[in-house]
């Protein structure tokens, strides 16, 4: 398995697997310590433990999907996809994780968007991976007790941009590019963003790349974030 890394393209290799393995230490550690704390104190935190385990399973699932898409073991069936419904479903999957991190996860799908041509499962997996990475990263960057993250879409001159945004300045395109290079050597390739391996960002990157899309930094009104540019399905628009 593998794709040659030029520094500017996503890395799909043992490095990404190692990054996912490092990332999985976090939820496993949380589960182990929460369970121990429950045993010591008698507190019932089974809901939190379940939410943490569910999110870890999604990370593994999304990594496996990225590998399948990239190695063409999976039929990449493009379909006409409603961006709003994908964002809504991604928000549902991220709800419990956001709650555990005191992040106010908002959905901004107020605009009317044309359907886009995409692989629905892949797009949703990319947004969930990205969202999970940012939910974990936001409280590590700021002392603010309540943080906001928005799943949103907007039109740009290049197409419809769907992404994850916050009012804290996130990565620049250069830092993202540099992070892809550092994935080979660093435990913390996205130093400005995340205290962990930030593998959710790289998994999203790999999934989007396999779909011939690109993860990039993006602005949404006054918010900063990461997103993917999607092309409207003009055929559906005519119907």
């Amino acid at each position: 398995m593998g794709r040659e890394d030029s520094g500017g393209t996503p890395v799909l290799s043992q490095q990404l697997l190692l990054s996912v393995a490092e990332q999985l230490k976090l939820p496993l550690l949380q589960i182990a310590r929460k369970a121990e704390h429950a045993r010591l104190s008698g507190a019932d935190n089974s809901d939190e433990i379940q939410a943490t385990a569910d999110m870890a399973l999604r990370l593994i699932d999304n990594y496996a999907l990225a590998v399948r898409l990239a190695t063409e073991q999976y039929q990449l069936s493009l379909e006409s996809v409603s961006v709003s419904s994908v964002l809504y479903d991604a928000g549902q999957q991220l709800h419990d994780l956001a709650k555990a991190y005191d992040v106010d996860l908002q959905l901004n799908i107020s605009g009317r968007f044309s359907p886009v041509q995409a692989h629905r499962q892949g797009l949703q997996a990319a947004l969930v991976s990205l969202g999970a990475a940012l939910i974990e990263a936001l409280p590590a960057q700021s002392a603010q007790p309540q943080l906001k993250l928005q799943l949103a879409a907007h039109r740009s001159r290049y197409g419809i941009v769907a992404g994850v945004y916050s009012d804290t300045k996130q990565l620049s395109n250069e830092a993202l590019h540099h992070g892809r290079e550092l994935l080979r050597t660093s435990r913390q390739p996205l130093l400005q963003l995340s205290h962990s391996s930030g593998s959710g960002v790289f998994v999203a990157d790999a999934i989007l790349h396999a779909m011939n899309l690109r993860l990039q930094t993006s602005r949404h009104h006054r918010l900063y974030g990461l997103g993917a540019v999607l092309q409207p399905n003009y055929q559906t628009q005519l119907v």
Partner: protein
Amino acid sequence: MNILLVEPDRALAKTYAATLIDAGHNVVAAATAQSAIQAADAMKPDLVILELQLVEHSGIEFLYEFRSYSDWKSIPVVVQSYVPPAEFNDSWELLKNELGVQAYLYKPIATLKLLLEGVEEWSVAMHKS
């Protein structure tokens, strides 16, 4: 005992803080190096528990800043981190001798029980001195 917990992961910080509070300690959690310095200034910690992997400024940068203040030179610091012990070979002497790190706990194997036992030991040692 006043404990400053420098932990970037909010979910883990909640669990560690709750455990230490249950054991009768006063805990302030900080996620970044900068907020940890501000918290130390406000709370006058007796012990610092520190993760090295932080966003922007690392735990080692925090330690250099922390030790640069005369009031905080002798406050015990325990590193509790994801960084595996094998990767410490080169830097342990620096952390121990120059930056005054008392002990190192590798998070994946350091249970809450082990952390509490360590805190008790450091608390006793502090009162003796």
